[in-house]
């Protein structure tokens, strides 16, 4: 049984990380066969799969926008994904809200005016959860969009910061999320410094929030590097396969 006092001792967190350290992060692009783009984000004990379909015809048709593509974002947790009991299948109030704010992130990042009267689906499936699944999901969705060849202003990066007692830390895991004092999931566009998603639980002062922003902007660079590495690896793999095809 983990207690709150265990979360931060002698400058170290429960899993040995310092305040600025992220959990181990691995991103793989192009993991699904049928989707136009896909990505698997393994972040600590989180496993989140993202798939992109589209641009395709809008369904239902009356939602079509003659000036731009509309984004259909869907974040959902598998009923077996948590450490607790079997969850309910299908969307719940939490996942519907997260899908909405995720949609807004992709509406900003995708060059939607290049694809009028179409719809782009971004599906984010949480297969295994350990805190920070919405930011992991959106980070995966961004890679899946790029993997699908959909033009983006920049790759959105999700990351959370939060307070454990008086210590601001990055990338909270499930224990820190549940027992800590506050947490602030954010999604930013690193190139422009824009904040595309901001949510919060708990109480934070203006100074706390300012500090959280600075830490998130700094930490996001590491996540961005992994996103780009994943895309590069995927393209190199495709190029190698194409070259092999030519020699045969």
């Amino acid at each position, binding site marked *: 049984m983990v207690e709150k006092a265990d979360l931060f001792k002698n400058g170290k967190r429960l899993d040995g990380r310092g305040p600025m350290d992220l959990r181990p992060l691995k991103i793989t692009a192009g993991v699904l066969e049928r989707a136009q783009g896909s990505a698997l984000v393994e972040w600590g004990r989180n496993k989140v799969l993202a798939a992109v379909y589209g641009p395709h015809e809008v369904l239902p048709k009356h939602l079509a926008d003659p000036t731009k593509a509309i984004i259909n974002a869907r974040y959902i947790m598998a009923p077996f994904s948590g450490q607790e009991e079997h969850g309910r299948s299908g969307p719940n*109030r939490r996942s519907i809200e997260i899908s909405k*704010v995720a949609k807004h992130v992709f509406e900003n990042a995708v060059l939607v005016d290049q694809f009028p009267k179409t719809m782009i689906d971004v599906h984010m499936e949480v297969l295994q959860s350990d805190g920070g699944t919405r930011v992991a999901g959106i980070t995966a969705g961004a890679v899946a969009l790029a993997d699908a060849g959909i033009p983006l202003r920049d790759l959105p990066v999700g990351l959370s910061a939060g307070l454990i007692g008086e210590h601001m830390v990055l990338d909270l895991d499930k224990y820190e999320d549940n027992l800590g004092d506050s947490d602030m999931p954010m999604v930013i*566009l690193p190139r422009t410094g824009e*904040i*595309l998603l*901001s949510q919060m639980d*708990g*109480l934070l002062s203006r100074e706390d929030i*300012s500090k959280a922003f600075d830490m998130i902007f700094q930490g996001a660079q590491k996540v961005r590097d992994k996103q780009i590495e994943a895309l590069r690896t995927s393209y190199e793999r495709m190029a190698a396969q194409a070259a092999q095809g030519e020699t045969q």
Partner: protein
Amino acid sequence: MILEQIKQGFIRELADKGQREDGRGLLDYRAIKVTKGFAPNAEGSALAEIGRSKVLCGIKFDVMTPFADRPTEGVVMVNAEFSPVAHPEFRAGPPDEKSIELARVVDRGIRSAKVVNVDNMLVTEGKVQGIFIDLYILDHDGNLIDTAALAAMAALKDAKVPKFEEGKIVRGTSSGSLPLKDIVVSTSFEKIGKTIMVDATDAEEIASSGRLSLGTANDGKVCSSQKSGSAGFSKDEYLQMIDWAHEKRRDLLAKI
């Protein structure tokens, strides 16, 4: 609705000049009015009006099964109903993403600031107090989150805790006011072009590209943050909005 759509260009031009259709300054709220005790059969209620927007909050107590990991804690639940009486685009039916978002943002503000002390709300073995906070949107002319948060806070202030006897609630009785540990309000900002303004009307929200709703609590704390819409905000804009939210908090508190 068509009129609001047509007005978008006009509203954007005005916003670029720092002006608004109704002559308000960018940081001015419309008239705010709160009527407590509007639905007296509820244990607490309040009708909040900001400009032409109206939200009624009713609070009912009940006896509930607690969460397994928190056997003595009371359960607070916030729900929002976007009634079809409020807007030509609202339809009866299960809550959509906007109504779920509104309810959850108001809920997080109240929960984060621990406005209601839910510790030790045991009624009888295996049963605790439940507090249902229902938000009825009755008229929608923009800024529903702030109007709903105001209605919820005023209704909580209005609420009388009923007596519980032999594990049951005794309706129509009171054992005193519901003790509140903090007071939270919400201030929502809309971004039209590069201009940021508070308390947008429906037409302004249609012209807006994004919103930030900030909940404020006592001691200069922020208790909720929700970015909505496609626009992005810079760190400087965000911190500026925190300062503005704390300024506006004083005006909003004076009404409840």
